[in-house]
């Protein structure tokens, strides 16, 4: 019996070791080695990369990443909730709406980010339209600032908030709202005291799915921020390219991973157990 169990679990174990632990072990090893002069890594083993992480400069970058990610997550909740509620209440075309939410995934993220650049730049669609209608004289600086990065992050991860919210709201019994109304709750009270508490598992799942990938984002700050605002993802990327400092890049990405795990730990404790 035990042997059978072992055999059936073996593929999963191999998959786990080969695809998860082995790459992670390589990153760990790299972070403890010395920088090769022209990229790559060399002996001897050293803690130096981690010592360098303890530096106000990287603290600032980390803080900025956390603040931007938290802001993006917050905006995603506010935008996604009505949308998810609407889709879950829709009687017809429910599948169509869901497809529309997922439609952006059918094209490359890079192409969609470039599309935003075309919309936001000085001679882009938004500025041209506003000037054409006489609202503006000078184009607004919409591109290459933190607001543009935030917009890009919200745009990129909104579906990841909508889908789990939809999944929980869909399961909610509409009769509960009728009961709330019968007991004298106005729509507003019903929303905050009935719908939101019931949707909490979806909210937590959405937060995890949006906040964590946001922390590691590097393409959006690079393209929409114009390289003027560095997030930790950019720091890691730069170590593996321009700076040719793989150990430090590995150490930085492991630090990011530890922080992410810590965040997940909080979700585990605070959030509902059945979700994560």
């Amino acid at each position, binding site marked *: 019996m035990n042997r059978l169990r072992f055999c059936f679990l073996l593929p999963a174990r191999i998959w786990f070791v080969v695809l998860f632990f082995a790459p992670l072990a390589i990153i760990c090893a790299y972070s403890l080695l010395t*920088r*090769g*002069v*022209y*990229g*790559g890594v060399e002996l001897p083993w050293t803690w130096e990369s981690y010592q360098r992480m303890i530096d106000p*400069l990287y603290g*600032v*970058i980390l803080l*900025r990443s956390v603040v931007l990610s938290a802001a993006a997550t917050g905006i995603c909740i506010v935008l996604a909730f009505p949308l998810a509620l609407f889709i879950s209440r829709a009687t017809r075309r429910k599948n169509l709406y869901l497809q529309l939410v997922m439609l952006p995934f059918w094209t490359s993220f890079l192409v969609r980010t470039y599309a935003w650049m075309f919309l936001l*730049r*000085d*001679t882009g669609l938004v500025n041209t339209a506003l000037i054409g209608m006489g609202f503006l004289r000078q184009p607004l*600086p919409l*591109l*290459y600032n933190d607001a543009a990065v935030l917009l890009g992050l919200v745009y990129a991860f909104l579906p990841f908030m909508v889908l789990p919210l939809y999944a929980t709201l869909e399961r909610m019994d509409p009769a509960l709202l009728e009961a709330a109304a019968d007991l004298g709750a106005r729509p507003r009270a019903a929303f905050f005291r009935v719908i939101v508490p019931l949707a909490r598992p979806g909210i937590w799942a959405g937060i995890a799915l949006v906040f964590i990938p946001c922390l590691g984002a590097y393409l959006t700050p690079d393209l929409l*921020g*114009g*390289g*003027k*605002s*560095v997030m930790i993802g*950019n*720091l890691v990327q*730069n*170590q*593996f*390219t*321009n*700076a*040719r*400092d793989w150990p430090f890049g590995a150490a930085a990405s492991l630090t990011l991973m530890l922080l992410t795990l810590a965040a997940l730990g909080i979700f585990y404790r605070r959030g509902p157990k059945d979700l994560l």
Partner: protein
Amino acid sequence: MRRRHFLFGSLATGLSACRRDRRPRLNVYNWSAYVAPDTIPNFEKEFGVRVRYVTYESNEEMLAQVITGNSGWDIVFPTHNRVPPMSSMGLLAPLDRSRLKNLPNLDPQFQSPSWDRALEWCMPYMWFGTGIAFNRSVAPAPSAWADLWSPRFKGRLTMLDDPEDVIGASLKKLGLPFGSTDPDEIRRAEHELFQQKPLVRAYLNAEVRDQLVSGDVLVAQLWSTTAAQALDVSPSLDFVFPAEGFPLYCDCAVILRESRRRELAHEFLDYLLRPAVSAAIAQSTLTATANAGGHALLPDKLRNSAALYPALDVLRRGEWPGTLPPAAQRLRDRIWTEVKAS
């Protein structure tokens, strides 16, 4: 153009794979947009071989593969200052000059370059410098790195997203060497970059081209080849090599030590050295060929382009940056992170 080329290239590779092609295969890894559409097909036809042609966007991307010594590539195109380290790491195969009959076609300044005096390891291919691209509506026109600190360009100015070039420009503005390794000098350059940052719209590489053409950006620190491509599209743009001095770069073809088709690789390099071939490449990609024979065949407009082929007295202000020692490289990287995170 690049995408179409890639599509046709992969289609051709796919089809030839189906036919179980027995022809020998050469593996070439080059920068994107660095050959004419017919360069590779013509070589395949003439020599009866197949070429696996793939492109990259940065030296680091290429080095990360090649450094393993088992990358599967025969020929790659590092920038000149990556050639000495690559050869000292034992990654390169020496060039056999007897197989490169067309080597004398190279421009005299590339016959014995500072990074490889005897052309033992590399064949200079395309070259370019870093300067300032600007809109002619700007008056007075910028002519020096110091002009990139002028408040009149606030919000309409971009710098390259490249620490070596940006810190180098700042050093040049201060009258210091482009490749300085002195921590005090590098710190002074950083101070200048902090001063400049409020004026800078963004740190952009080739993607600034469209915004220069559309007029969003008025002044940009830019590579001469990228600038020449923008100038070709928009008559309202111009390019200048700054007065304080500027860096020059040359991308060179090298044969890797791991290559098992060195003879064929030499044939390919010699093919690229043919005047007609190098002229066709330079004309289709708007880059500056290191091949004097090819240069002579170019149409007048291209041949006399001041951005691509600066005059001798301009060239005298240029310098060919070497490789930075690790300590200086690390300090510069830190400074770059500080400037961008500020």
